[in-house]
C-alpha cells in the first residue's frame, strides 16, 4: 500500500511533501511524544499525531517514516510545511481525532 492509497481511502488532505506520496506504507504508529516515536516508530510507518511544530519532520525523516497525519484539523507551522517539502515527508491532515483516524487506518491496513 502506498501513501496515495491511504489518502484516498481515509479522505486526507495533502498539506505538503507531494514528492513522498508514492512512499510504501509498512504500518502506523500513534504518539505525541517525540522520544517515543524516535525509539519505537519503524521505517515506512505512517505517524499519527497532534503535534504541528517542525521537529516532527526531523523525527519522521530520521526514522524514514512514510508520512505524518496531523489530526483534528490542526494547522502545522509554516516551518513544518517548509521542512516537509525539503525532506519529502508528506504532511497529511484530517478533521478526525486520533482514535478515529487510527481506527480507520488500522482497518485499511488489516484489509490488505
Amino acid at each position, binding site marked *: 500500500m502506498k501513501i496515495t492509497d491511504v489518502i484516498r481511502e481515509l479522505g486526507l488532505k495533502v498539506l505538503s511533501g507531494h514528492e513522498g506520496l508514492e512512499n510504501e506504507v509498512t504500518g502506523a504508529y500513534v504518539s505525541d511524544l*517525540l*522520544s517515543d516515536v*524516535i525509539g519505537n516508530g519503524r521505517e515506512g510507518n505512517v505517524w499519527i499525531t497532534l503535534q504541528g511544530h517542525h*521537529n516532527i519532520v*526531523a*523525527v519522521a525523516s530520521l526514522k524514514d517514516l512514510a508520512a505524518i497525519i496531523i489530526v483534528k484539523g490542526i494547522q502545522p507551522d509554516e516551518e513544518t510545511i517548509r521542512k516537509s517539502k525539503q525532506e519529502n515527508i508528506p504532511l497529511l491532515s484530517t478533521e478526525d481525532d486520533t482514535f478515529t483516524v487510527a481506527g480507520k487506518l488500522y482497518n485499511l491496513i488489516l484489509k490488505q
Partner: protein
Amino acid sequence: MQYRFKIAGGDFSNAGTVASSVKKILRQLNINHTVSKRIVIALYEAEVNVVAHAYSGLVEIDIDSEKLRAYIADKGPGIPDIPKAMEEGFSTASPQVREMGFGAGMGLSNMKRNCDILNITSEPGTGTNVEMITYFKPDAR
C-alpha cells in the same frame, strides 16, 4: 574520520541536524542499516538533551573501521543525580518543552538502548559530558 558539530541551547528549529548529518555519513559509508538506525536514535536524543537543557554543546564524532564514538560536551546546569535521570519517565524539562512532545523522560533510556557503551559524567552548574560508542558489527563489543 572525525566530524565536529556545534549545538545551541534552546534552538529547537535545528534540533536533529547533527543526527541527520551523521545519518547521511553512515549511509555513504555503507554502514549496516540496523546499526546506523541505532546510532541515529541515540544521537538525536543526546542532541535534543543539549537543546532542551543546556546553553551550548559540542559534538565530536569519530568513526573508524569498527565503531562510531560520539562525544557530546555541553555547558549547562548538569545532572545532579545521574541514576535518577536514567529512570524512564523522569524529566526536568520545562512545560514548554513538554508541550512540544519532548521531555517524556525517555531520552536517556533511548540512548542507553541504542548504543553499546554509554558514559555520562556531569558537574552540576557546569555541564554534562556524554560518550557513546557503537560497534558496527553487533557482536564486536
